[in-house]
């Protein structure tokens, strides 16, 4: 089922319990769009990681700060934007979790998982308005891991 021009927005406050609210929206939306359960799950996982970062690193767990997620579906093209009210970071300085010296680190795999499960992810930062992450995925092209990225 193709659903042109669909747009869903959800705003949550910065609590870890709210992550799954955004994740289930992602999963349901993908399933409604005809994606199978596994594919929907991996996109939900990318969303989970993005929202967790927005809450933890962006809004630093300040419950008064919001995280906004926008889902846009045009034909098979899904675009997900996750925005927080933090001060941003330099994505260039994020280390590669596959580098042997990072393999045993207890963190630093969130962005890697997003890249693995989505076609593309792009950060943008505007001074005073926090971090915005746009993740895109063509739902017709098959799903994250299974499509041969691993």
């Amino acid at each position, binding site marked *: 089922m193709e659903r042109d021009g669909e747009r869903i927005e959800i705003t949550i406050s910065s609590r870890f319990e709210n992550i799954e609210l955004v994740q289930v929206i992602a999963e349901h939306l993908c399933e409604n769009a005809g994606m199978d359960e596994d594919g929907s799950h991996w996109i939900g996982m990318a969303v989970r990681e993005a929202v*967790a970062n927005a809450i933890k690193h962006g809004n630093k767990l300040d419950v008064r700060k919001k995280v906004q997620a926008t889902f846009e579906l045009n034909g098979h093209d899904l675009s997900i934007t996750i925005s927080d009210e933090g001060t941003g970071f330099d994505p260039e300085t994020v280390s590669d979790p596959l580098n042997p010296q990072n393999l*045993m680190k*207890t963190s*630093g795999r969130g962005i890697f*998982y997003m890249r693995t499960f989505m076609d593309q992810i792009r950060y943008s930062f505007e001074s005073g308005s926090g971090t915005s992450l746009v993740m895109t995925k063509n739902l017709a092209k098959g799903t994250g891991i299974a499509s041969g990225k691993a």
Partner: protein
Amino acid sequence: MKATTRDVNGIAIIKVDGKITIGAGDQQLRDVIANADSKKILLDLSGVTTIDSSGIGELVGSYTTVTNKGGKLKLLHLPAKLNELLHVTQLITVFEVYENEQDALTSF
């Protein structure tokens, strides 16, 4: 997350059920493992419903803690999605993983 520990021949089999996600079970997992009575730990993950990068991080941290104490942490019954998450991050090379409890126990 819920963890149930039983002892078989001095090996602590810890069965983990539910979520190991940020703020829900990630630190708990590390505590359960740090407090195990044995240095030989078999982690039965068949009941894990969701895990995220924080949960994966805790598995790695627990492995390091146990190994540094001279112990052994091995994994049993990886759900398919957890298996994939360990694969893409190349962590699967770090862990000894078993599909059969008896095989796992005799390997210690």
